[in-house]
């Protein structure tokens, strides 16, 4: 028997390896180390993230396959990996004081966040549906646990349970879709699927079409697109706020990373079959997200619906599917990471044990007492609403101009109208902060240095990406060459 040893190429998964090893060491440390040494765990995890980030930057521009064409290293994967690492780092920075205040200062929290990041990174660099599935499950399992991390709080555990049941349900659909695509094409390799599908363009194999539909269900769930969004508001409201922040960016970006690679690359010859489905999903997602967000009183729920709406904008860019459209998905994801994490950072800072301040009315009069914090929150709200000169504005501009350029003028008009609608509920918070008198006495805020650093990074990112957009758009354009 002829045994071929596959090429391994460890360096291609350097960032993932770094994070995995860091996570395993920290897991051990959180068990055996003394309580004082355990306080170093968040800082050690930041060290691991920084090292992985450096590796990602040093790998930029290289392209290679690893593990017998299971994993691919290209700029597209690296761009998403950098987004995941920034998200993870900001989440860790925002969590340190929050966990202490809530009395859940356990090392596993950081270990699970790191493992979730590893799963997301594998999902972005998947060259085979097996890796898409494994990456998805790796980060999902970690986040199911993290959502219920405040395990004595009924809301937290309920959100964890809801996320787990619906997440596992959607995994079933994804897996069945993969099985049918495997049956139709005879391979799970994305390149193999692309070659098979492009050879027979007028293909009407029902197995392939049903499989494709099931994949849309599976990915649609992870990126929280309507009608697979039911879990989002409940899970976002109940989970620890730092995990809500992580969840609103990480899994969404990972979902889109794999969604784009599977649909815009492997299944691109079938574009006429799936593009109208995404068109409908984009319209539903944007409209429902924005309309329902207006009625929300809880700020975490409002941001949950806003995150649904943002998934809709990204779907618009996916429908456009040309160079600008795909690049604007990457650009928007980067901008969204900074602005959304920043907004959640302010919510974490403003709330505390016993006085959570999660209602929008709690923000009234905040500017008089904390002018700087209110200004920071206002920047994130302007960016989420898409007001220049922030990153959110440029992102939406790229997305809608890509849609117009690709001939989807109706879709672009619906998108712009939705964006106008969203200004109402984002600016309502700003109005509350600046133009109302406070309803109650605010307790003194003591921001931790880590939180201050996280907010500075988020503000800087939001403004920097918005003021010099062409640089980041060029990086995004370099990244998508692998898909074209």
């Amino acid at each position, binding site marked *: 028997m002829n045994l071929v040893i596959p090429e391994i190429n460890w360096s291609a998964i350097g960032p993932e390896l770094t994070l995995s090893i860091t996570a395993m060491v920290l897991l051990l440390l959180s068990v055996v180390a003394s309580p004082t040494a355990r306080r170093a765990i968040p800082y050690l995890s930041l060290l691991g993230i920084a090292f992985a980030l450096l590796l990602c930057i040093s790998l930029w521009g290289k392209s290679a396959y690893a593990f017998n064409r299971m994993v691919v290293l290209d700029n597209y994967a690296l761009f998403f990996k950098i987004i995941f690492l920034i998200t993870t780092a900001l989440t860790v920075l925002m969590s340190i004081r929050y966990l202490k205040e809530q009395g859940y200062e356990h090392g596993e929290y950081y270990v699970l966040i790191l493992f979730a990041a590893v799963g997301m990174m594998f999902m972005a660099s998947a060259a085979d549906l*097996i890796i898409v*599935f*494994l990456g998805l*499950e790796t980060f999902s*399992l970690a986040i*199911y*646990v993290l959502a*219920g991390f405040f*395990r*004595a*709080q*009924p*809301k937290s*555990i*309920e*959100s*964890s*349970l*809801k996320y*787990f*049941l619906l997440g*596992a*349900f959607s*995994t*079933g*659909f994804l*897996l*069945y879709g*993969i*099985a*049918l695509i*495997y*049956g139709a094409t*005879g*391979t*799970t390799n994305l390149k193999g699927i692309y070659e098979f599908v492009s050879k027979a363009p007028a293909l009407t194999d029902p197995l392939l079409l049903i499989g494709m539909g099931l994949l849309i269900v599976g990915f649609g769930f992870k990126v929280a697109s309507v009608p697979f969004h039911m879990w989002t*508001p*409940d899970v976002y*409201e*109940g989970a620890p706020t730092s995990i809500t922040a992580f969840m609103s960016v990480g899994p969404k970006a990972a979902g889109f990373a794999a969604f784009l690679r599977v649909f815009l690359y492997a299944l691109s010859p079938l574009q006429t079959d799936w593009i109208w489905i995404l068109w409908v999903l984009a319209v539903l997602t944007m409209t429902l997200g924005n309309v*329902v967000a207006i009625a*929300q009183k809880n700020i975490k*729920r409002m941001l949950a619906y806003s995150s649904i709406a943002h998934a809709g904008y990204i779907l618009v860019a996916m429908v456009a599917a040309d160079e600008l459209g795909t690049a604007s998905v990457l650009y928007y994801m980067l901008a969204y990471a900074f602005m959304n994490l920043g907004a959640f950072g302010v919510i974490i800072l403003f709330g505390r044990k016993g006085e959570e301040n999660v209602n929008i009315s709690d923000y009234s009069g905040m500017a008089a007492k904390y002018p700087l914090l209110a200004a920071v929150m206002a920047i994130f709200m302007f960016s989420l609403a898409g007001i220049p000169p922030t990153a959110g504005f440029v992102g939406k501009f790229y997305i809608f101009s890509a849609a117009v350029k690709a001939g989807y003028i109706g879709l672009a008009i619906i998108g712009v109208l939705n964006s106008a609608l969203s200004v109402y509920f984002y600016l309502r918070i700003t109005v509350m902060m600046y133009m109302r008198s406070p309803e109650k006495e605010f307790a003194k805020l003591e921001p931790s240095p880590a939180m201050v650093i996280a907010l500075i990074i988020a503000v800087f990112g939001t403004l920097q990406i918005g003021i010099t957009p062409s640089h980041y758009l060029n990086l995004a354009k370099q990244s998508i060459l692998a898909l074209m």
Partner: protein
Amino acid sequence: MVSLSSYLILSAILFSVGVVGFLLRRNIIVIFMSIELMLNAANLAFVAFSRFLDSMDGQIFVFFVMAVAAAEAVVGLAIIMAMYRVKETVNADEMNLMKW
């Protein structure tokens, strides 16, 4: 020899039973079992395709799915346990702290 389509029909039936069970049953443990049934329906489809396409990929995929399903069972049962400690129920209708 049993034909490929009979395997696929069986797997589709199992999958549908899983979906219907997930949507209709109210006991969280039974809902979880329905999810496992969906995963196993996919496994059956994988193995059947693998046999008839004469390729090993599908069978390898099944090993990964089984490992992931085991991990999922661990996490899922732990979450259900934690929830039972707080609320003393496994009825899905009583998961109603948050609604829109």
